[in-house]
């Protein structure tokens, strides 16, 4: 009972936050110089002033800003994100949703890769604090963190794509014949194209997570209950992985919750380098073209996911950590 009312309260609290986000973003966005027609109309000798005025009217830019916001909000309530201001005038949701699957897939896989590598790395580094292994991995993960993604990407393409000719250089599908492939071949084709992008987007994240695991682990290993466990004569493996790691990973719930919006936030740099049609490139070009509806559309999704991620982190924490759970009940 207490838990449900806590949840309801939290969700209700999110609603004004959400509208506050959209309001501030909408007005800040319009502070940038230029208008959506700029790219089409500026420096175009065939563009007449009348035409410019007509375009402004068609986009509703001739109205005061608060009217524009009200109109946008009205659409949002009807779950309509409007149409893009770019020459294709497509529905914003169509433009974003056709790019979401591949962005989510890559971000999800790279998150998985980061966790799979960095947690064991962090644990080992903590258990053998200041050993050679600890020092070497520290240097390596920070090197990976510091290396610019585009540079690493280009080197890997050169090596795997051209020198060894093992993997495709860029893109998502084979140039010819993808449609005729069977399911297994399609999966294989996808995998070949995704190896480099996933790897490149993951290596930068290794440092953060492995260091975090290490420090969190170190803290836990100094606790009395670890000493107790060892004193009971439990094997070291059980002490580390059952007693220490489970507690050390608690803060990860928060981190994972906060990284949910990151799942749809593509990266312009590696999407451009690997020629992947993801959300990042769409947003970049929308910013450059002052395509307000597309920007707002993406913002709505990111805002919802961020708020949801926060909520899930709180709830998840309460669910796994008995201390917080009982704390809540005591407040009742």
């Amino acid at each position, binding site marked *: 009972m207490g838990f449900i009312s806590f949840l309801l309260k939290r969700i209700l609290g999110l609603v004004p936050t959400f509208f506050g986000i959209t309001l501030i973003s909408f007005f800040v966005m319009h502070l*940038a*110089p*230029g*208008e959506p027609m*700029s*790219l*089409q*109309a*500026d*420096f*175009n*000798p*065939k*563009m*007449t*002033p009348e*035409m*410019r005025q*007509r*375009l402004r009217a*068609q986009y509703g830019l001739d109205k005061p800003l608060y009217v524009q916001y009200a109109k946008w909000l009205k659409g949002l309530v009807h779950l309509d994100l409007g149409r893009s201001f*770019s*020459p*294709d*005038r*497509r529905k914003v949701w169509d*433009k974003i949703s*056709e*790019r979401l699957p591949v962005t989510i897939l890559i971000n999800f896989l790279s998150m998985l890769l980061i966790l799979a590598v960095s947690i064991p790395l962090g644990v080992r580094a903590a258990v053998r604090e200041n050993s050679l292994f600890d020092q070497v991995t520290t240097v390596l993960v920070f090197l990976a963190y510091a290396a610019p993604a*585009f540079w690493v990407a*280009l080197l890997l*393409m*050169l090596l795997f*794509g*051209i020198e060894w*000719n093992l993997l*495709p*250089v*860029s*893109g*998502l*599908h084979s*140039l*010819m014949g993808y449609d005729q492939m069977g399911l297994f071949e399609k999966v294989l084709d996808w995998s070949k194209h995704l190896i480099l992008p996933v790897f490149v987007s993951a290596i930068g994240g290794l440092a953060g997570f492995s260091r975090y695991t290490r420090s969190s682990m170190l803290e836990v290993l100094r606790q009395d209950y670890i000493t107790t466990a060892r004193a009971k004569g439990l094997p070291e493996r059980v002490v580390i992985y059952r007693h220490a790691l489970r507690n050390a990973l608690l803060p990860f719930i928060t981190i994972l919750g906060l990284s949910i919006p990151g799942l749809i936030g593509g990266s312009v740099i590696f*999407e*451009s*380098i*690997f*020629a992947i*049609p993801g959300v990042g*490139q*769409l947003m970049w070009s929308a910013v*450059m073209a*002052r395509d307000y509806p597309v920007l707002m559309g993406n913002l709505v999704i990111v805002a919802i996911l961020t708020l949801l991620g926060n909520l899930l982190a709180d709830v998840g924490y309460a669910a796994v950590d008995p201390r917080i759970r009982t704390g809540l009940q005591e407040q009742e």
Partner: protein
Amino acid sequence: MCRGSVSSFFQILFFLAFFIHFSQDCLAEEDIVKEERPVYGDAIVVGSIGDASNLIPMLATDATSHEIAGLIYNGLVKYDKDLNLVGDLAKSWEIKRGGKEIVFHLRKGVRWQDGVPFTSKDVLFGFKTITDPKTPTAYAGDFLEVEKAEAPDPYTFRVIYKEPFAPALSSWGDIVVLPEHLLKGKDITKSDLVRHPVGLGPFKFRLWKTQERIDLDANPDYFDGRPYLDRYIMRIIPDPATMFMELKAGGLDWMGLSPVQYKRQTNTPFFRKNFRKYRYLSFSYTYLGYNLRHPFFKDKRVRQAISYAIDKKEIIRGVLLGLGVVATGPYKPDAWFYNPNVKRYPYDPKRARRLLAEAGWKDIDGDGILDKDGIPFSFTVLTNQGNSLRDKTAQIIQYRLRQVGLEMKIRQLEWTAFINDFIDKRRFEAVILGWTLGQDPDIFDIWHSSKTGSKQLNFIGYENKEVDRLLVLGRRTFDREKRKEIYYRIQEILAEDQPYTFLYVPMALPIIHARFHGIKPAPAGISYNFIRWWVPKNEQKYIIP
């Protein structure tokens, strides 16, 4: 030709391998000797930095959309390889009443790609759509001078102008012909044709995967003959370095190179064997433009002095690695209206100093920078962010101007902010920018004194009565020789006035896989005869079912 020597087993093997290889080469060469019997088949894969936005030509403003739409749609007229206007969908045309009336006679038996016959109604429909206030097009300006357009019969299209308008003829290109039967009564911005075009041209639309690729198939019923290539594939690769690697890995057949890639990175045996490089003057020039309202630049002598102080050949060597030519005016040197005999400004720092001294600029306080009335000659040049060629050009100019005692600072700005906050509000002293050139000499919008208002293109504020008069006259004159005289004179005046220091015309540097035959560079570039490119059977790479 196919020779080898034999002495040991190993060498025999070696020789055999070579022999097989060589004999294939010999066959290929025999084929060529038999000469140029084009065959059908194969596909070409083209790299593009940006995706298309809208495949209805009148709604699109970006280069990629027009490149694709240009293969799908046709106009009444087009430019041939020497940049002469020739008939396309129009078999012929008559210019009557001193240029006020144009009558087009259309080809018969042409069909839209869905099988419906093409008639003059489609042209009239396109005209009505482009002039409809509801159509969000950037190209309506060309048709404002039209008084009346009509389609008296299915194969005649007549258009009457308020005044004779010489650039009019060329405006009846592929932008204005639309399939009436698919668009009538519909909102063109929401039409299915935006992403699935139906045209009359040599290629038919096949598929478009956003930000990934666009595929076109040869149109077997094209009125001018089916293209030899079966398929055209455009791959969208936003990063130039990746694009170059795709080229190397075999994933691309055709891309535009940067000067460094052209000169150095493709100068390897691999590229010499597998690719052919081409170069021709691009339809653009780069300039240093002055705000003529600014007290420094009001004086013609100052502008001329700066032009003498800049070594344009040095810029071409340093920035373009020699792949460009000096610009002497607002046209490229291989155009028929280019005047080669205008006043030139070779690198001459002494003369620059003399002109500046005449204009009253002297270094009084001895700090190395010229001053006049206590004001040092120090100004800022603006250019757009992310254009490394312009950035390097600015740095070379900065160095040369410092040597004659002028201080120039460089500031780079994001494009939209640059245009809206600086150019449109006239808040600049000098700029480095470029213009893309059309095939017609009309430059009214850039140089006429009526075009100095906000958002208009004569943003430097150039005013010259004679140029004004000639620009209007040039628009009213149809006779090519007379037009040539008019634009020759305009170039002379601009060269004397130096409202811009014209810097350079860069070269377009395409690279194309060596298996494609029939490519013949001309003043129009290389793609004018694209539908006649072909690949010999034994070299075909992609088999299209």
